[in-house]
């Protein structure tokens, strides 16, 4: 694969692994989610540049808009967690489980 392709894929994969293997803070998972979004943004932007396809020039902007919605939803959940469980630690979420 091309170096560009490899870079973007590995950035995405690293972000996903960070999301899956986080340890303590919910905020770090959200940050990795943002990193995934960033990788996708760069991929979409380079797509239309590399392939000279002007038709998909708006795709990155749409992507950005939806990721903003998702980031705000995630932050709302973080705030709700902090309110109900007192901390932002991941282990607090299933502390009372058997």
């Amino acid at each position, binding site marked *: 694969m091309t170096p560009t392709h490899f870079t973007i894929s590995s950035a995405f994969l690293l972000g*996903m*692994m960070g*999301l*899956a*293997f*986080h340890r303590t803070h919910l905020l770090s998972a959200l940050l990795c989610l943002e990193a995934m979004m960033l990788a996708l943004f760069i991929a979409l932007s380079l797509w239309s540049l590399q392939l000279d396809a002007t038709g998909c020039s708006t795709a990155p902007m749409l992507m950005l808009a939806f990721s903003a919605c998702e980031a705000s939803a995630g932050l709302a959940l973080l705030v709700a967690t902090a309110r109900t469980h007192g901390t932002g630690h*991941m282990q607090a979420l*299933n502390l009372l*489980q058997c």
Partner: protein
Amino acid sequence: MHPTTLMYTSSLLLMFAVLLYPLLVTFTSLPLNNDWASSHAKTAVKSAFLISLAPLSLFLSTGMEAVTSSWTWMVTTTLDITLSFKFDHYSIIFIPIALYVTWSILEFATWYMHSDPLMNRFFKYLLTFLVAMLILVSANNLFQLFIGWEGVGIMSFLLIGWWHGRADANTAALQAVLYNRVGDIGLILGMAWLATNVNSWDIQQMFILSKDLDMTLPLLGLILAATGKSAQFGLHPWLPAAMEGPTPVSALLHSSTMVVAGIFLLIRMSPLMENNQTALTLCLCLGALTTMFTATCALTQNDIKKIVAFSTSSQLGLMMVTIGLNQPQLAFLHICTHAFFKAMLFLCSGSVIHSLNDEQDIRKMGGLHHLAPFTSSCLTVGSLALTGTPFLAGFFSKDAIIEALNTSHVNAWALTLTLIATSFTAIYSLRVIFFVTMDTPRFLPLSPINENNPAVINPLKRLAWGSIFGGLLVMLNINLFKTPVLTMPAELKLAALAVSILGLLTALELATLTSKQFKVTPLRTPHHFSTSLGFVPAIIHRQIPQLSLLLGQKIASQMVDQTWLEKTGPKAIANATTPLASATSNMQQGLIKTYLTLFLMTLVLVTLISAT
């Protein structure tokens, strides 16, 4: 112009000028002297009465009628309205009678309203009312009549609510306006139909052009107008409530002049009604129902003014019956004679009320024929005239009406009701006389009983002469348009007298029972029906608004707020989704790390397998 017409027109013009002159003081800022009411207002009406005797005597000697059309008001393509006055048999006879009665009432009012700081304004209102009534009576086109009609309506409102600090007076004035407005709808309907179909509002043109038309719709409108203005059944509650106004107002407006305006309209338009059997039958049955119902209500009232008010309403029903018999002239005769004795009855009530320190309950009066002999005599004369005692004023009109009723091809139910109402008239009249003048006094000893003031005596005297001789004078000097039936069996001829005497004997018997116990437990239901006025005010003034408000509350709070917004609208979504969300979250165990790790490993595996 023919000299007679000139005389008629200039007399009317002079009458208007004389009556409007005292009202001009409103526009000057000069302070009025103490007896302005007596020296200017009453004198103006007296002068107007004397002026009106000139056309009357000319009419009696020549029999000539006239119509004067002067200034053109409006000219449209299809409708012309001019200022026009009709001097016919009806207006020439009615105007002097109305002015005579008004003169007496104004003189009485100088005594009755003596302690009122706004007495001058009261007299101005009465003069304005009188001018509006004269416009109504002398109008030759419906537009001018409508001006007079609305004028008397608004003055009635202002005068009923004279003591506007009293809540009951305000509601009574409002009732008068609302019920009259419902009647006005009928008048406007009639006017609109006539304007579009016979092209005119002039009486002469209407009569000529409507010979072949079906006049049911405009006649129904005119009958509705009469129902509102003359308090026929259905639109009647305002008349007893109008007794909240001062006694001179009750005497002038709500007995002699304003309430007969509706009947007068039907009398003027009677050539339109002659051939329409529907309208005649409607008038007959409506009038019979009114006269019976209001006479029933009058039997158990305890306020002296309310009894006389219901008596007025009953006589108005009798006038409507006469119109339904196709005898407009007899109805007009009854209007004229009724004005005399009814105004006198009201003035006697006013004298009694003031003498007993504003006591209006007949159960707290008594023995006044020793203490106020003149007033009691006038009360008795007035009541005898009302019941149709032979050869007093009421006899000539009332007996003629009952004879016409008995000898016509008429609805038997209407006939029965009218005869029963005639006997009830005797009963409640005797009740008034018994409770007010006879027996022993039931009021406090220190009552300011004083009838020595000439301002009280002279009006009562004048109206008493009118109640005794008025019917005879009018009957002797007019020509009857329709030939009355003069031969009938003796029973029919004496029917009116017989039922009145029957009522009188019944009432005398009942009067002796006031101090005995006839039954252990009396039958209360008919008494309740009569005392609560047939439940009509209770239903229309209370029950129907309560139902409307209840319906409004149900729609606003229960239907809109509770049902549409909470149960089936936005809140329904919230109420339905919350159980689903909590069920789903109960199913999840919260092991996020495990879930995400598994997700990642599955993703990597799928990528590797699909890559090979």
